[in-house]
């Protein structure tokens, strides 16, 4: 049975003509094959998003962020920043709530990044309304923990679709290049869930240093203990230094970066990593709702920032601070904004990686 193919009575031909003749003799069956293959192909195009869709996607989001003239090779959001290194010294107080190795008593090295909001890598430090602290911890079991914390404690909106509308209202009109401040006022009016954010925004006073801001996880996560019990939490990096709100009017464009370098030349910059525990009735999947201040807070440990370096060629340059890179013992909440952040960061990372590969430099 397993004989090799041998010449048979059928004349062999390499001509396409015979093949075409075959098609003509069996049109219906060929059409059937064509329909099956086309259906699969169209299904794939549909899944890939090449077909028009009204759905919000990571690509649409990043396209809005970068506008018509992206700064190639830079992050699409929080483009300007500096790399930092240091270690986290755990108090051990959170170990009973999460099996993550980082919460055991002891220290974990990290690297990270201070940055300001916006897509412009040369924007003046003190003009940005948002500052950020991103950290990447490397545990010895190989599971990383990455976080990207910001100065606002809450989001203005609770869904990615609304977040897109919020950004569209903030950004200049893509056609005219003109920013209309009325648009964002109207947006907040149309979104009552933004009340807590707007209140924070109106009361927030920037300090003259990265070292004296409070940085928030914003979205909630779950701590998971060894028995699998879950506790919803948010966390903050709370500065140990005393804030100074006097900002010199003639401060240089790199004021915050220079300040950080100077502080570090004198010693470590310290933050407490404070976890807030949600109660039963608190909104876990809704980043617009702050939890009452009297909720239980536990200081997981202290962040010692010991070194800083320029982001160009720095240790943080090649890292995507995706908040969904979590060790076992920490899980994401159901907050849809959290998925959106992860997906949009990945798309931003892919774009700047491609630009860097093709020679665009930071």
């Amino acid at each position, binding site marked *: 049975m397993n004989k090799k193919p041998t010449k048979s009575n059928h004349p*062999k031909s390499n001509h396409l003509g015979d093949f075409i003749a075959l098609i003509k003799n069996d049109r219906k*069956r060929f059409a059937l094959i064509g329909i099956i293959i086309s259906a699969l192909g169209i299904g794939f195009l549909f899944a890939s998003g090449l077909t028009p869709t009204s759905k919000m996607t*990571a690509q649409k989001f990043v396209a809005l962020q970068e506008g018509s003239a992206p700064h190639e090779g830079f992050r699409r959001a929080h483009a300007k920043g500096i790399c930092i290194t240091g270690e986290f010294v755990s108090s051990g107080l959170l170990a009973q709530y999460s099996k993550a190795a980082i919460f055991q008593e002891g220290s974990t090295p990290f690297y990270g990044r201070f940055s300001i909001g916006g897509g412009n890598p040369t924007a003046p430090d003190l003009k940005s309304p948002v500052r950020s602290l991103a950290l*990447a911890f490397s545990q010895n079991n190989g599971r990383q923990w990455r976080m990207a914390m910001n100065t606002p404690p809450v989001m203005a909106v609770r869904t990615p679709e609304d977040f897109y509308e919020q950004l569209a209202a903030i950004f200049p009109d893509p056609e005219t290049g003109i920013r209309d401040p009325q648009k964002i006022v109207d947006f907040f009016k149309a979104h009552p869930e933004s009340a807590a954010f707007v209140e924070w925004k109106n009361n927030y006073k920037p300090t003259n240093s990265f070292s004296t801001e409070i940085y928030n996880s914003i979205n909630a996560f779950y701590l998971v203990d060894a028995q699998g019990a879950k506790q919803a939490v948010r966390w903050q990096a709370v500065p140990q230094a005393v804030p100074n709100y006097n900002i010199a009017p003639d401060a240089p464009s790199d004021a915050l970066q220079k300040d950080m370098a100077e502080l570090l030349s004198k010693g470590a910059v310290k933050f407490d990593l404070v976890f807030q525990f949600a109660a039963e009735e608190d909104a876990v999947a809704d980043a617009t709702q702050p939890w009452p201040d009297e909720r239980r807070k536990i200081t997981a440990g202290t962040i010692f920032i010991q070194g800083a370096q320029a982001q160009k060629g720095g240790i943080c340059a090649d890292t995507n601070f995706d908040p969904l890179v979590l060790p076992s013992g920490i899980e994401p909440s159901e907050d849809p904004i959290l998925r959106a952040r992860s997906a949009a960061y990945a798309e931003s990372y892919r774009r700047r990686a491609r630009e860097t590969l093709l020679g665009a430099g930071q």
Partner: protein
Amino acid sequence: MNKSSAVKYPITARLLHWVMAVIILSMLFLGVSMIQSFAPWQNVALSLHKSFGTLVFILVGVRLINRLLFKPPALPSDLPHWQAFAGRATHVLLYTAMIAMPLSGWLMQSAAGLEVSVFGLFNLPLIAPENIKLYSLSRELHGLTAWLFFGLILLHIAAALYHKLIRRDDVLDSML
């Protein structure tokens, strides 16, 4: 009717073929949709994608070894040369894609500084240092290969149906 008369691939080969076919097609559809989605399932999809990708990488190794252990059923003797050649070329490219997809996926995760967790059971070691250029190269290769792979699979399915419906030979039956 002629099913019984067809010389079949060994059961191991048929099993590997169909199990991998289901996983790979699911992975391709999942892959292209999850990279744009903001849906809550996106994160779960990512970890499943990585886990099943590792499984495919292991299975393709098993399959290649298995492939050396048997002689596949011969092609029909009256098959035109160009079709036999196209078939062989497609199979070589399909195997290449089956290896290139998980390998580029593993490489891009490593270059992003991330270990791949396999069904939460164990982590794959990093096979490259964290490097954004290497990430981009492997990321784009992963995406591009996905499209070529899907095209090859369509060609493969079209050819199988052509054998069954037009030529009415035993080629498809040998894999059923």
